């Protein structure tokens, strides 16, 4: 009896320790931006695309930006609609978590979409008031991938014609002094 109670206790304890992500509240970046103060110090999980740069610092951390907006799944380069500004927050994580990540999102590249769990630091007093997600665990939901780019041949040809026209006018019609 005593053994079975102990086993049950240990099993329950293991479940609690082994599933920190499940305990974290899954929120959107928009919610974090709107409820920044209320969520301060709580463990949250957010999903989004890593964009910009990976800044590996001397203290063993890596800073980047996580966007959770319409462009993550409908990039403008793939017929997405321009509906407004990006919605992103800063994320800071141990450098080793970031070592195998695909490059961050930029022009012609959709960065990796990740599920990041960590503590939301709101105007962190240890970092003179910065707000960021201190990431503890990271899961890649979708790897990064290149985005297509279409050359606007009409613009190229028309532009070249205009320049040629300007050159011809400049040559044949010299200004009077």
């Amino acid at each position: 009896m005593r053994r079975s109670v102990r086993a049950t206790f240990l099993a329950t304890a293991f479940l609690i320790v082994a599933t920190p992500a499940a305990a974290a509240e899954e929120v959107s970046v928009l919610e974090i931006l709107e409820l920044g103060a209320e969520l301060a110090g709580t463990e949250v999980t957010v999903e989004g695309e890593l964009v910009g740069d990976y800044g590996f610092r001397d203290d063993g951390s890596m800073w980047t930006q996580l966007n959770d907006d319409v462009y993550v799944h409908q990039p403008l380069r793939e017929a997405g609609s321009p509906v407004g500004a990006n919605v992103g927050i800063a994320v800071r994580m141990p450098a080793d978590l970031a070592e195998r990540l695909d490059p961050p999102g930029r022009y012609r590249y959709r960065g990796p979409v990740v599920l990041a769990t960590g503590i939301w630091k709101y105007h962190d007093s240890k970092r003179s008031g910065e707000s960021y997600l201190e990431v503890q665990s990271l899961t890649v939901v979708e790897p990064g991938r290149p985005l297509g780019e279409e050359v606007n041949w009409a613009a190229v040809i028309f532009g070249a014609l205009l320049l040629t026209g300007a050159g011809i006018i400049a040559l044949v019609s010299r200004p009077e002094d």
Partner: protein
Amino acid sequence: MLIRPVREDFRVIGFYLGRIFLVVAAASLLPLAWAGIAREWNPFGSFLLMTGVFALLGVIGSRLAPGESGLDWSHGMVVVALTWLIVPIIGALPLLMSGHFGRPLDALFDAMSGLTTTGLSLLSDVDHVASSLNFWRHFLQFLGGQGIILAALTIFAGTGGITLYFGEARDERILPSVTSTARFIWAVSVVHLIFGVTALGLVGWLALGFDFDRSIFHGLMIFFAGFDTGGFAPQSTSVGYYHSGIFEGVTALLMVAGAMSFGLHYAMWRGPRRSVFANLETRTIISTFGFTMVLTLIGLAATGLFVNVAGLARHGLFQVLSAHTGTGFSTVPSAELAKWGGLAFGGVAIAMALGGMGSSTAGGVKSLRIGLTIKAVVNQIRQVLLPEHALVGTAYHQSGRKHLTPALIQSVMVISLLYVALYLLGAGIGLAYGVPLQESLFESVSASANVGLSVGVTDPSMPVLLEMVYMLQMWAGRLEFVAVFSLLGFVYAWVRGR
């Protein structure tokens, strides 16, 4: 009675516009080359088209050889006002063709915002913008901050140079000739460019851990937008993206340098440096910065958003400096800025409305006008309090000893009141669309004073009329009204004159 402009007037205006367009065409070869080197072929096509349009208009205009009359004051003002309207229209082509804007008007809004160094933006998904397009956005701010006309004057000198120079909202000629003044301004800017990009690039590379090429890229973009008090940034989270006090410090130095008048730069370079602090304008801006800073810090402390002094001081200082210099960078999101409320909100809004120094890249009422207004009011009070025949001193120091004359006071008051009217215009239109008073006023002041801080009113879903009013505010605010009224008068005379 207004005299209807004749063919010769149009030839003169067309000729000078043509020469300016040729200079802009030459400048637009830079983003074209950038796109080619970066193999960004979609923007490459749009830059080629833009360059072609500028070049063709430039060549056609510069062939309209003007007669003996030359460029008079009204021609010069019309040329300046039209330049600042047409360049954004053509400069918006690459933005429009990028697919990052829903409406053509939105692309024009961003081009106008860039050229007038405002920094408000309707661009969607800035985090995936082509590097060459980002370069063009920031380079537009550099061109606008320095002054397109100034760029043209550096290359061609002419009899009408002085008219064009003053038309672009510059109050003082630092050196005897306009061309040498223009070249001095470019020399100052190039020195700051070298210092700024090197410092920001090194911080990005060594302290932030960015790749070397990306560090230089970020350094160049932030230099253009910081020194020219523009406020665009290559990432959606503005300067908050960098999470570095050192980076913010270097950016702050560039913002201050940009908000200083070029006359003051000249005094600091060539001396005597003591005269810098004797200037009425320097004393005024230090006082108003201190005042708005204290207001903001007290207000921020009351909100309880920051739990320690370091955070409060860092973010408060940066936002007020950004507002007062007319830059528009931020280290907090728009949604949070809107929550500041009370004194903090008021401090930032007042700082935006006051603006930087005259003959600088900053907007707003300008410190010299504020200083002269205060001096005039104080003199008036002293005149009332002193015996009837007592004489009240009217001297003030501004690059030498000068006197406060009734004509000067009148001019200062008129321009200051026009700014207030402009601030109220946008706020009124915003209110009519249901935007709360506080936010309407903030965004309107931000547009008119060419600042660029936003509390979220500027958005692709904003009403078209409000968007057009903000564009008008940016244009009129940047040119300080005179050139704008000259153009309106010219058009009126053309339609109704005899």
